[in-house]
């Protein structure tokens, strides 16, 4: 910084400290107001927030979800340990859950399907012609004879036997759709689990999966999440206390974190946003930034006191003045990187991005202003709070850093860095978009939800659905043999993919009806010969049923229909392969009278999310890097600076991506914000070190000495924050939510690499390459500092 700017900043802080009571009061008042607002922020998951805006699949899902089944489906499996399900006690449970689901909040009462519902019916020929009637509604079978009839009806119907009753007859499925409008996941979850618990036992096992249940579990663990959050904060305090051994070193960083959090949450309320429990780790990450800024200021303050600053206020001003530039740079660069996430057109990411940006900017007040102001209240030279002194350990580490830079070891470090960068950069390409494992990546593989999911997928065709709309060009298109045959061929084509457990459409139903009409001769289990015959068959199936029963397959005009595909998992790769295959099929087998529209249901929506993230990840990373480069270039008026600061970021990126690829953590809607935030985060420590070096050079032109000194002052701040944060972030690994544990670990890794590169790699690079923006050049030499700074 130019001396002129220095004095302006100094003057500003001096003024602030002179009016410190007013400053504190103003901030306190604002915090109180924000606190009131923040206490009203809702913590919940809104499914529609996950859906990309303006994506064609999402448009199809929104248009057709009420008829063909949306993405909020719950599947409940009732499995017997012995024998088969055809026992009165078991069927009674099926009926009880089916009826009980009607009462659950936000359930779509027209989309509850089980063998005990009115929806599952059979078509049979009788003396009065052909009739279609529910197989087990409203009454359960009475006596063995009726039970045998039911069993036969199930076995004889491929629409039931397979999709709703397992091939070994040991399990049956109940599915229910939920309206996504204002579903309260916790409430629905409680009610569903109540039904499940009631039915479980007596030789019957009940399994339940589906997005509403998944989010129910997430909410269920909310208390634990909050506990971990506070435990992490507590551990922060303890470690800070341990290392700094002073009250101001402990309380002020915490204060910075708390003020920032309150302001951010209050702002979220003002913007009308809510907080998703899954991104609480992101909140912690930003809090960590606030704390880190504050710790730097305090560490510098302590140095000033140690070097003989006369008053606390003078030391505070000196600290603020000297760290103003790297702190501002860190805040602006971080905020820019987080703001870039908003470009990904998913409402949840946009909201996180806006909240995060406000949060980071609030650090300006909570740490940059409040920490020096508050520091001025403390008396200098107070004794230590406890006798345990860790400082020698820190000094040893920092001396080791200096040792690396000043000896030939620096070349070794640089060489290793180069190799690690290349190898991890290559391996990072294995990073997958979308979920990388079966089951839900949010929960641990051994969680009861994921166990249930794997049990259901073992017995049935798959619990995750995607529907592809067959949109006829005019009414009656779905009765045309050409269209129906194309649908049947399409299903066959899609089922070749092993993860597709099965599929269902109108093209499966009509042959069953036709077979019944033809004396039950399976050689006639085919589509009708012409539109007229197909129309008759449809009529046979619909007659006697409620209006809307057919909607699952086709609308009343036979204009739009759906092919529903059942997936055994929703891994990114499974979904991408399926979507590509749909497109391949449509391209190779065009039909005149209808179009295939992708895609609805959970898998359809996830396909859209994954596509957006796949397209957006390069954009997000490239633009975040660009923000960083531009910030640094402008700040240091040097393009070389931009490139220089990319080094630690690229390194932490490639290593973290490699770690994600190695651990099977996919790049998805939950991990993307952490990744983008990490780009800003990865560079902050380097800012402090580099600025420290530059500042030393103001006083002394010896580069080596400047590096060593910077490492011992700014380096200590980096070390303290890194140690504190890595330890407390580690607490997240105890979370029952795998996502949070993974993210915690990821962040810890990120912090470690950033700290490591700031302490070992970057100083070595400065030493070896002597970039002009740090060490100066003949054309633009480093401005010498004026003698002793003005003291207030």
């Amino acid at each position, binding site marked *: 910084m130019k001396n002129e700017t220095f004095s302006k900043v100094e003057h500003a802080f001096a003024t602030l400290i002179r009016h410190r009571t007013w400053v504190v009061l103003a901030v306190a008042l604002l915090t109180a107001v924000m606190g009131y607002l923040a206490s009203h922020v809702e913590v919940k998951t809104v499914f529609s927030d996950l859906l990309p805006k303006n994506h064609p699949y999402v448009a199809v899902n929104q248009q057709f979800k009420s008829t063909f089944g949306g993405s909020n489906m719950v599947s409940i499996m009732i499995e017997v340990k012995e024998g088969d399900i055809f026992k009165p006690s078991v069927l009674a449970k099926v009926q009880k859950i089916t009826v009980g689901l009607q009462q659950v909040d936000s359930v779509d009462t027209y989309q509850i399907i089980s063998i005990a519902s009115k929806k599952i019916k059979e078509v049979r020929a009788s003396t009065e012609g052909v009739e279609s009637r529910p197989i087990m509604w409203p009454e359960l079978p009475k006596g063995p004879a009726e039970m045998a009839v039911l069993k036969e009806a199930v076995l*004889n119907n491929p629409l039931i036997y397979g999709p709703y009753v397992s091939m070994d007859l040991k399990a049956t499925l109940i599915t229910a759709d939920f309206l996504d409008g204002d579903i309260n996941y916790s409430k629905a979850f409680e009610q569903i689990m109540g039904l499940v618990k009631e039915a479980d036992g007596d030789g019957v096992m009940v399994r339940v999966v589906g997005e509403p249940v998944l989010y129910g579990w997430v909410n269920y663990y909310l208390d634990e999440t909050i506990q971990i959050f506070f435990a992490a904060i507590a551990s922060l305090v303890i470690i800070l206390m341990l290392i700094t051994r002073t009250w101001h070193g402990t309380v002020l960083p915490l204060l910075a974190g708390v003020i920032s959090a309150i302001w951010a949450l209050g702002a979220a309320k003002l913007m009308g946003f809510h907080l998703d429990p899954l991104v609480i780790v992101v909140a912690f990450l930003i809090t960590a930034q606030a704390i880190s800024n504050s710790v730097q200021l305090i560490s510098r303050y302590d140095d000033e006191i140690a070097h003989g600053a006369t008053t606390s206020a003078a030391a505070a001003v000196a600290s603020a003045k000297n760290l103003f530039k790297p702190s501002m740079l860190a805040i602006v660069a971080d905020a820019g990187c987080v703001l870039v996430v908003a470009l990904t057109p998913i409402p949840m990411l946009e909201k996180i991005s806006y909240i995060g940006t406000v949060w980071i900017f609030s650090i300006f007040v909570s740490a940059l202003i409040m920490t020096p102001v508050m520091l001025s209240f403390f008396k200098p030279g107070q004794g230590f709070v406890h006798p345990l002194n860790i400082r020698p350990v820190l000094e040893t580490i920092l001396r080791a850093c200096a040792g690396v830079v000043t000896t030939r070891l620096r070349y070794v470090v640089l060489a290793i860095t180069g190799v690690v960068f290349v190898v991890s950069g290559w391996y990072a390409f294995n990073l997958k978009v979308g979920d990388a494992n079966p089951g839900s990546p949010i929960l641990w593989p051994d969680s009861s939800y994921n166990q249930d999911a794997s049990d259901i997928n073992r017995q049935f065709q798959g619990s995750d659905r995607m529907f592809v709309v067959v949109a006829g060009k005019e009414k009656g298109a779905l009765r045309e043999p050409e269209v129906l045959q194309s649908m*049947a061929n399409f299903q066959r084509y899609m089922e070749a993919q092993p993860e597709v457990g099965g599929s269902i459409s109108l093209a499966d139903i009509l042959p069953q009806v036709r077979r019944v009409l033809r004396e039950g001769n399976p050689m006639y289990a085919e589509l009708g010969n012409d539109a007229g015959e197909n129309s008759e068959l449809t009529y046979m199936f619909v007659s006697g049923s409620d209006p809307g029963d057919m909607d699952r397959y086709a609308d009343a005009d036979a204009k739009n229909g759906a092919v529903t595909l059942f997936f055994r998992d929703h891994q990114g790769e499974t979904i991408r392969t399926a979507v590509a295959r749909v497109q391949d099929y449509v391209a190779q087998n065009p039909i005149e009278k209808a179009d295939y529209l992708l895609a609805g249901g959970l898998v359809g929506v996830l396909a859209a999310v994954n596509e957006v993230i796949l397209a957006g990840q390069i954009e997000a990373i490239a*633009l975040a890097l660009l923000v960083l480069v531009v910030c640094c270039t402008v700040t240091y008026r040097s*393009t070389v600076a931009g490139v220089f600061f990319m080094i630690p970021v690229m390194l932490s990126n490639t290593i973290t991506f490699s770690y994600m690829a190695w651990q099977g953590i996919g790049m998805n809607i939950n991990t993307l914000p952490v990744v983008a935030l990490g780009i800003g985060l990865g560079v902050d420590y380097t800012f402090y070190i580099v600025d420290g070096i530059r500042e030393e050079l103001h006083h002394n032109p010896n580069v080596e000495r400047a590096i060593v000194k910077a490492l011992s002052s700014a380096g200590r701040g980096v070390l303290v924050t890194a140690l504190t944060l890595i330890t407390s972030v580690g607490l997240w690994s105890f979370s029952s939510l795998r996502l949070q544990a993974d993210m915690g670990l990821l962040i810890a890794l990120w912090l470690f690499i950033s700290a490591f590169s700031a302490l070992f790699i970057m100083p070595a690079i400065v030493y*070896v390459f002597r970039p002009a923006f740090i060490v100066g050049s003949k054309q633009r030499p480093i401005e010498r500092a004026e003698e002793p700074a003005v003291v207030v």
Partner: protein
Amino acid sequence: MLHQLKRFGSGARAAVNVVTSTLPIAIIGGLLYAGFFVKAEAVINKVEPKAVERRDNFFSVTAPSEQIAWAAGTGGKIVRSDDGGKTWHRQVAPTYENLQGIAAWDAQHAVVAGNHGVILYTADGGSSWKAGQVPKSDNPNKLFRVHIFDGVAWAVGEFGSLLRSEDKGVTWTRAMEEKDRAWNDIYFRGQNGWLVGEFGTVMRTTDGGATWTENELENKVSLMGVDFRDDQNGVAVGLTGTLLVTSDGGASWREVPRLTREHLLDIAWDENRWVAVGDKGVMVTSDAAASEWKLGRISEGDVSWRTQIARAGNRYYVSGANLGVLEGGKLTIVGR
């Protein structure tokens, strides 16, 4: 390091300057370009469909030798096994119609028949299937089964379709006038032949199929299959468990009391006993005299419908809702 370059003079320094000033611009440009124009391309896994897919129904199966078997079914699917049913491979047929019948002369020559009058033949073991010349009329021309007797192929179908081919499936001619009655199965022993179909009809010929006479029967239930173990003794099966037995070459038929209400769709004499298969996995068997009939299942727990059973050595192939191989009482479903 850079200061060491001074030794090389101003030229080197200029070069370094050029690099350090252009590299950042190149990187920023690259990032801008990547941010706005580079879109990640997903790598898509290739999926190879299996020879036998879950969705497949097989309406017919034939075994020209002990190791070779052929099956035909939905969507123009033809599969063949050369190792006694252990592995199957798909053969490409130029049709998407459901194929209802398959028959083979030998390992090289075979014929399939199906919906809309589709008949395909092969002369190279199935490497290529070609369309035969088939007379068609304005009804759906649905053909059910095709059988070969003394080198002559016979196909039966809806609306009284009875077609024959003497050139291994290349050309076909009508052997009977059409009428509104479906023929479901045919069997020949020398010049004697029997034809069964809708409404419980049985027709008989004694001149190799030139003229046919109808038997007067009480049974009005559609008959689905017919087979003879010699010139005199034969059995016909039909819907809702119908079983008819003759011991006078088809002149008269007596009804066996029904053992099941399930449809029986095929009957075969396997040199030891009579075997009939049908809906929901039922299997009805009897001794040679066709007097002691027993109801059983193809395999316990298997409830698939079966349209045909074919024997090869001590192994049976069953077609239907799926394709199965029955060996030593153990049923293996192909593709599961």
